């Protein structure tokens, strides 16, 4: 029975480890500034936890076989434990866990404590059962006022966000697909009109809940041209699984052209 345990535990351990090492399924290719650090920190954590995982599981299997009761086995080593070993182990794990934590905090701080720089592209992201809307402030650089009384999701676009479409000063661009210029910081302002949603772009290593009643500012910088998928990561109702969108990261010129064309459509 000891041998059976050893074989089963070791096989499970090695098979589980194999898929982490072989990266059969892995993080999508990173396309934002933060991806380098996040992926590195993930890899470091994986190596450290992997060592502990292998050491613990392999010894568990080994002990089960090595110390199985047999007629020839020696009497047990009658021990109540060792204070010295406990202390060494406690200090080691504390250093490991707290160290990992402190390493990661720098990037967390730069992303979440600091404001976006002055040259950042402004985009407002609004979640609504079950769609994402993106709003750009238009030539005046300011978001026009919205009103819940004017909200009409069935009309889509500007009406869904409650913009006053009959106001000639309202020049905001509202779209269902997000366009961003490459290598420029994006100042995202996240809102939700009904329940909690979560704006998740795996390739950009970005996730943040959109909470009704809050206006959450976040910033990130896409670094590779391409099309990336947007998902909702917070359970928001029956259409949660299909609350899907796309972000197109394009060159600055293409972005300017695209935005100018949307503004032209308005007038």
């Amino acid at each position, binding site marked *: 029975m000891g041998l059976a*345990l050893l074989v089963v535990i070791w096989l499970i351990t090695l098979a589980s480890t194999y898929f982490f090492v072989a990266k059969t399924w892995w993080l999508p290719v990173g396309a934002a500034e933060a991806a380098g650090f996040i992926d590195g920190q993930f890899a470091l954590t994986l190596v450290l936890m992997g060592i502990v995982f292998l050491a613990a599981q392999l010894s568990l299997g080994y002990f089960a076989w090595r110390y199985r009761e047999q007629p020839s086995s020696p009497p*047990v080593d009658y021990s109540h434990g060792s204070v010295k070993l406990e202390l060494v182990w406690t200090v080691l794990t504390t250093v490991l866990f707290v160290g990992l934590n402190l390493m990661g905090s720098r990037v967390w701080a730069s992303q979440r404590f600091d404001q976006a720089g002055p040259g950042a592209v402004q985009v407002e992201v609004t979640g609504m059962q079950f769609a994402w809307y993106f709003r750009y402030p238009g030539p005046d650089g300011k978001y026009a006022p919205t009103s819940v009384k004017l909200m009409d999701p069935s009309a889509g676009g500007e009406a869904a966000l409650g913009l006053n479409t009959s106001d000639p000063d309202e020049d905001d661009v509202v779209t269902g697909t997000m366009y961003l210029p490459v290598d420029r910081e994006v100042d995202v302002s996240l809102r939700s009109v009904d329940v909690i949603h979560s704006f998740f772009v795996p390739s950009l290593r970005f996730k943040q809940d959109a909470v009704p009643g809050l206006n959450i500012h976040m910033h990130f910088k896409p670094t590779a041209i391409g099309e990336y998928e947007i998902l909702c990561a917070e359970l928001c109702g029956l259409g949660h699984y299909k609350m899907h969108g796309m972000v197109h990261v394009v060159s600055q010129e293409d972005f300017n052209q695209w935005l100018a064309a949307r503004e032209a459509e308005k007038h």
Partner: protein
Amino acid sequence: MATSATAHAHAAPQGFIRKYIFSLDHKVIGLQYFFLALTAVWVGMFLSLLMRIHLIFPAASLPLVGEIKPETYLSLLTMHGTIMVFFVLTTAPQGGFGNYFLPIQIGAPDMAFPVLNMLSFWTTFVGFVVILAAFFVQGGAPLHGWTGYPPLSALQSAGPGEGLGADLWITSIAIFCLASLMGALNFLTTTLDMRAKGMTMMRMPLTVWSWFITAILGLLAFGVLLSAGILLLMDRNLGTSFYVPLVVVNGQIMGHKGGSPLLWQHLFWFFGHPEVYIAILPGMGVTSQILSTFSRKPIFGYKAMVYAMLSIGFFGFMVWGHHMFMSGMSPYSAFAFSLLTMCIGVPSAIKTFNWLGTMYKARIRFQTPMLYAIGFVSLFVSGGLSGPFLAQPVLDIQLHDTYFVVGHFHLIMGVAAIFGMFAATYYWFPKMFGRMMNETWGRVHFFITLIGTYAIFMPMHYLGIAGGTRRYSQYTEVAYLTKLMPIHQFMTYAAIITISAQFIFVINLFWSMFKGPKASDNPWESTTLEWTTTTPPPHDNFGA
């Protein structure tokens, strides 16, 4: 202590109803909790089977539920989580085994408050009936997940199931909280006041320590959830706005103003994180007990184990914010919660170290309880080591609300805790029913279940790393998610095999109850007090 024991003494009941239904005997009540949890776990497991089948055969019509619509899937998931967390993971380890064995292990004739004990079981039972009722009302069971985040859970128009079904869901949880508060009070008083002469705190078995600390957690956590639930009921039915700000659902302005959705998350996780330890601590206790018994050695580092459990309990109340890194909570507090969460990994590491130390240079006997205890250690390690990923906010950006989290918590608070329950069942069955369970079938059940649970829950980590979001009723709408379907297929087949193997357990359990070989008073040659009395124990435990 002898005086308090006599003060609580009550004569053995005679009639069937007082003996088996409205019993005051902690042993009968323990069995009632055990069988309630056994019923609940089959309901919860059946729901998970439906979900797993639906994920790989989206169009299939399934037994009892028919075609699974997205909202059906979400209500399966909500009810699976709620039933498993409350009526299985909280009910069996503490209410079941704790009730049966805590008094005997400290040399007491019964719980401190036998009537309260009976009430707490029957209140739990009512809670279970109420949650099952949610399946049968108009609109069906709620779809807001076991975490029930408002505004989704607070607004009837936010989705199907958010009508009466959601009210029943909250009511059931509130009833469960009341029952758990009564239970916690009883466990604490019994442990503090009813110990036999010479049974000092630092001589108590680690099982008793684990039930004692769990009771402290329960007392502090369930009160908060109860209040949170009442506020949610008020938001839903009395027009208050604790959790709901001004929102527009489907073009309709809701009549709420100024509430905070984050308030619920704080209150819920203030309960929710200690709840993880409520589920797992008794498993740790019984694992320590069994490893020591079957290794023929005292537990390695008894004092370190006690302090580790106490610090897990203490830190358990300071880490709830790690569920909320992406919620919009202040990023500064995320920093503090993250550091404290890493700290809670330390006592968990100490426990693993001591379990291995107990097996070191031992003479291990491999009866089924020992297999399950070793399985517990393995799953605890595997589930625990994904914690330091999720505890780092920068990594949580990518992993939050993906299957990585689902894999993590199922391994550690789901199946590890269930392995603790299996270990406890195989271990204490002879004392509870006077007969032995079948060893061969016990071993077959163990190996299929161990390999099966790893096959179900380990791939969830790969799925999560690749961006596989959780709570999606279908993986067909997003291009890169469809590529992850092979992982889902593998997990579903593993789940079907593992769930089928549970029939081996149930048949073994009931067959052995009536046909198993008679058990001696101490078949495992264990050292705690329950093995010094007759099998099964008499009404007042020691025949005094």
